[in-house]
């Protein structure tokens, strides 16, 4: 009962602890940069670093969406399959030649990918909220459905972008640069900036964090809880679509295994970035940092000879556990 008096002086400690948890991923990133430099002289070169960040774009962008879902108290396991499904439909559309002009065709394809991504997210969200089913189960189901549909569309093989004109038009979106900055990096920055603005500065973001923090309080405060939760999955779907927009010009092809295990990498990036799995807190920039960390660890393993690169998945698995332990120990200092 008498919490007022003792907590007043305890507050500075709480403030420091929260800061520490927000800063921890960036400290880890800095530490990795030092380690990488020690391991290989080429590591710290601009060329290598931009290359690494560029390659992290898919996971970083998907993980930004996952931050929304997770901070709303949900989970989306279907993102990896969703990438394959959306990319396949996009390529099939571009190949279909419905629109003769390559530029118009490509733009239509982009719009189509975004719409399909949003619809896939909407489906996840509606099944979770209207069906009142655990997000884990729902997205486990849709993960299978998207994967299965992709396999069926490709008949077990690959779906490849065939139109040369579209290819040459589209290629720079992944491989091009603006003012020396690779376009995928700009995509990451734009997606994260927009997502951070919406999450931290708008009414929807406030509602989302409230729902993730305590759904009852949100309901009793008159918030549209179902709509808020559903929209989080739509945001996730949109982020998947943006990732697809970068993925298609890179490889120009999808198979039944496209995006396999990306959901786990995305969740890892979110958690490493300092977002709590129980919801209520979302750290967009931490998530982006988490995605960089995953990619940089892989890169260091490739450049150095300490550890076999075949162990990358194992190391990434270890990272998520270590990140949780660090978070836990920081939380315990209160």
């Amino acid at each position, binding site marked *: 009962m008498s919490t007022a008096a003792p907590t007043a002086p305890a507050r500075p400690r709480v403030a420091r602890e929260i800061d520490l948890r927000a800063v921890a991923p960036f400290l880890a990133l800095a530490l990795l940069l030092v380690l990488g430099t020690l391991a290989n002289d080429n590591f710290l070169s601009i060329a290598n670093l931009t290359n690494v960040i560029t390659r992290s774009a898919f996971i970083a962008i998907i993980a930004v969406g996952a931050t929304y879902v997770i901070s709303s108290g949900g989970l989306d396991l279907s993102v990896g399959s969703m990438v394959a499904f959306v990319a396949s439909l996009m390529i099939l559309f571009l190949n279909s030649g419905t629109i003769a002009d390559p530029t118009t065709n490509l733009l239509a394809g982009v719009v189509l990918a975004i719409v399909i991504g949003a619809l896939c997210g909407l489906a996840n969200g509606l099944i979770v909220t209207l069906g009142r089913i655990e997000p884990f189960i729902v997205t486990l189901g849709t993960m299978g459905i998207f994967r299965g549909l992709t396999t069926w569309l490709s008949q077990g093989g690959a779906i490849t972008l065939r139109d040369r004109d579209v290819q040459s038009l589209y290629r720079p979106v992944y491989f091009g640069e603006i003012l020396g900055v690779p376009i995928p990096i700009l995509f990451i920055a734009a997606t994260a900036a927009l997502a951070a603005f919406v999450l931290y500065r708008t009414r929807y973001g406030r509602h989302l964090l409230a729902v993730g*923090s305590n759904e009852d309080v949100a*309901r009793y405060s008159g918030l549209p809880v179902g709509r808020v939760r559903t929209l989080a999955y739509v945001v996730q779907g949109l982020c998947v679509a943006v990732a697809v927009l970068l993925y298609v010009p890179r490889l120009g092809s999808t198979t039944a295994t496209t995006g396999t295990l990306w959901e786990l990498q995305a969740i890892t990036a979110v958690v490493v970035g300092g977002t709590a799995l129980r919801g209520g807190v979302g750290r967009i920039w931490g998530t982006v940092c988490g995605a960089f960390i995953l990619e940089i660890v892989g890169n260091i393993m490739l450049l150095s000879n300490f550890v076999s690169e075949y162990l990358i998945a194992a190391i990434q698995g270890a990272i998520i556990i270590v990140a949780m332990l660090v978070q836990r120990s920081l939380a315990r200092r209160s």
Partner: protein
Amino acid sequence: MSDVQSRGSGSDSAPVLEARGLSRSFGPVEVLGNIGFGLKAGEIHAIIGENGAGKSTLMKILSGHLAPTRGDILLDGEPVRFSGPVEAEARGIVLVHQEILLAPDLTVAQNIYLGREVSRGLTMNDRAMNEGAAEAVRSLGAALDPRATVARLSIAQRQIVQIARSLLVPHRVVIFDEPTASLTPHETEALLRVIGDIRAKGVGVLYISHRLPEVKEIADRVTVLRDGRLVATHASAELQPADMARLMVGRDVAKLYPERHAERAPEPVLRVEEFTVPGHAEAASFTLNKGEILGFAGLIGAGRTELMEGIVGLRPGHGSIHLNGASARFPSVHASLKAGIAYLSEDRKGKGLLLAKDLATNLTLAAVERFRRGIGIDRRRERAALDTAIRDFDIRTGRTDLLAGQLSGGNQQKLLIAKMMLLDPRIVIIDEPTRGIDIGTKQQIYSFIAGLAAEGRSIIVVSSEMPELIGICDRILVMRSGRIVGEVAGERMTEDEIVVLATGVETREAA
């Protein structure tokens, strides 16, 4: 220690548990200073004080949850240091927490024996545990199925389970932290009887409560804390509840309830007819007038909260609602808020506030669209609103960047009222407005409620504290088993009348 200390009635035996010069600081702030008192075997010793007076800190120190900064705890005259609550419990000091700490998905017996399960070979001896649990619950004067899931029990029943769990270990000192805060008069009476039985077994009982008549009734001695200091220890025979309140607050609080406005002609704003919330409330009909404070009395489980939740769209229900003469339906809280009806939940911590978020976020949560600038939220206006709310509702917080969970119960309630008043509702439904709140803050909450009514708003107060309903309401409706069974007003607004209606039994001989 304290020069006003007087010898209590009780026995002359040496204290079983004694505090000597106990102090506790958090950083530079001393929240407890130089506390000294003794608890004898076979006595009930009440500790009273306002929120922030240091009661809970003292209890936490005595039960091993906190270490004192200075001073000693003596058990049977020997200084002891507890490494934690487990050690204190092993030495026979058990604390019955105010908050209910049970696993809702486990059964009564599983909860009571959690962590000390009875085994038979490799498997658990469920039969022994169920029998033991039933016996433990029975010894507290209650009847509960040990196989019932805790999630299905009422708050009062859960409290019984919690007490049974605490008393399962051998104990010499039992500390009750506001055990009756959420109990109805009947349940309170039963619990006080149980505590009396514990005393009769020669156990020392430390009893913390805000309910002074109850303290007067059962305590042998009373120790009063104010601002972390011990004000006095008296035999309770020497004190009337009003004296206790004066010692706690440091000033006279005779006028707990505000003066009410003059009578005005009834002008109905809300008419509810034949409203049913399946499983909880049956065909409830009532009218709420402009500027009126309407009370809802009844036992816990009578369906008052559920009826209100049904009306504002938090639960499925059917029936007709007329708002200002026009038929209305509220499929969601959003709709009822929009129509100007605000509901403040009895469960402040679970349903009212986001404890892990800051004060401004909590304040504006329901009205956040009013703080928009473009598509973003205007933080500066939010902070200004917080400053206004802190001033208007006297929210006592040293700093404005605290989390809601760091406020005391009374200040949380003020914040919750401020949050809902941002929406400028014409009808305010407050469920258990002063549960777990000290007497000084209660007085303030009552005057806020009276002030809202004086502004022409209409108020519904749902409460299990009959004196409070009688003190502030114009009329009181009494519910029993989901039905509104009567209305009392004016001269007939007495505890006896309400109890008769609420229980359906004539409990007093003089009728």
